[in-house]
């Protein structure tokens, strides 16, 4: 596996020109802060939910901000593109597909992951897998927090 596979053009592009990266999202329904003390990564995810169909709330908008390595920031950026517009339940399912891919268990929903697929090669670098997962896990937590009727959550991952 070459360097280019690890930081391919797509990942570098998200790193250099992040999508949906912003210090705030006004208004938002839920804000989560995730940190990884071992790496020192810090990530904020703000999520606005569209409840126009009360039986199937969707991701109306999402903003992330943070401090971390190229892979964690690029992955959060790719995540933001993949989940906006999706039903929460569907986005959660997509998150699980990404997680399984990062644990080397094959690629499902390849088309829906959009640029997220580019992170597939990182599964071969165990110490970097957590970086790629950070944004997705924060999103998942945001959905769970929202579903529990709360609007704020701080999590420390190892």
């Amino acid at each position, binding site marked *: 596996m070459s360097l280019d596979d690890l930081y391919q053009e797509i990942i570098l592009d998200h790193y250099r020109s992040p999508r949906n990266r912003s210090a705030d999202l006004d208004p938002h329904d839920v804000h989560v802060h995730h940190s990884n*003390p*071992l790496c020192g990564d810090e990530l904020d995810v703000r999520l606005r939910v569209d409840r126009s169909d009360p039986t199937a709330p969707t991701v109306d908008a999402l903003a992330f901000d943070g401090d971390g390595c190229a892979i964690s920031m690029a992955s959060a950026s790719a995540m933001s593109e993949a989940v906006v517009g999706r039903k929460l339940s569907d986005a959660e399912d997509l998150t699980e597909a990404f997680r399984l891919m990062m644990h080397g268990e094959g690629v499902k929903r390849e088309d829906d992951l959009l640029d997220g697929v580019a992170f597939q090669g990182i599964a071969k*670098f*165990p*110490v*970097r897998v957590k970086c790629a997962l950070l944004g997705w896990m924060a999103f998942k937590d945001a959905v769970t927090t929202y579903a529990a009727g709360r609007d704020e959550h701080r999590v*420390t991952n*190892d």
Partner: protein
Amino acid sequence: MFDATTIRKDFPVLQRQVHGRPLVYLDSAATSQKPQAVLDAITRFYEERNANVHRGVHALAEEATEAYESARTRVARFVGADPRGVVFTRNATEAFNIVAYSWARTRLGPGDIVLSTQMEHHANIVPWQLVQPEAGFELRYVPVTPDGRLDIDGLERILATGRVKLFTCTAMSNVVGTINPVADLAGRVRAANRDCVVVVDGAQSVPHLPTDVLALGADFLCFSGHKMLGPTGIGALVGKPELLDAMPPFLGGGEMISNVTLEGTTFNEIPYKFEAGTPAIAEAVGLGAAVDYLDALGMDAVRAHEVALLEVALPALLAIDGVTVHGPRDPHERGAAVSFSVAGLHPHDIGTIMDREGVAVRAGHHCAKPLVRLLGSAATTRASFYVYNTVDEVAALVDAIEVTKRFFNG
């Protein structure tokens, strides 16, 4: 086919001469010898991928981490455990201390009983004694019968108090060889108190018997690498993940933390929570290779080989005038550590003279003074066998005892 004569060739030290005679190494219960495969695994680790483990982003660090964690997985499989429940320690002794300090000391108090046995190695006595004054529990011991077995009635009497919160015993005695019916004992203590924690000393059993920690009914299992063909400096505490999870950490430092601030610290997940500082990396790799070696032999075959040796050794020893053999006489009820006494001779003298004959045995209390005292002496001589010992070596043992008797009795 299991053939000790072929297996011996894998063990460089067994080519050695002692006092001009071929070494007959009968002290494996103290520590085993190491096959070339284990030495090579250690050397190769240092020559090819030595680095500190966890969190390093460079190739060597990744490879070293992979080697270390793969050893954990193989050791876990060897005893039927979840790798998350395998904490690498220096030796069995440290494993007991973790349970004593982090479980017994923090959970138990006055009114509770920690129940050990009179058959235990000091490693399974002293840690409980050390934390007892602070915790305030009562420390009791299951009596041992004259033929070297646990006294089940004695056990039941103590269990009847309903206060036994931790029961610990060896799966195989390092002095009298007795194989204890651990699963049955665990059933009895849990029948008396459903929540009783069961600790098993596997220092002698894991090297010599097929082991399945669940089948044993053990919550914790302690053993050492150096007695099972592995290097010194490595052992394991195997614990139920949910128990380890709930325990406070023991040693503090790097690796075992999640976040450190000057005000306080959060801890890493298990098993890392109990592995403070740079671990014994090459030693874990060596233990992994030892487990592979034993797996290739097959633990059933290892056991069968030792039973076959005992079938020769026990009658041969008993046939020597003045020799008493301690512990069970049926090979199927015992391991290959055989303590004996020779009338009128002191074990130290026996050990010294036998050494002159090239036969390495241990003389003393074998770190199990309470048990040896029960046998009515202050010391015994112990011959212990392993995969590389042959029937010819049993004969050498018998000859050396005869030489010793003649030497002192004139």
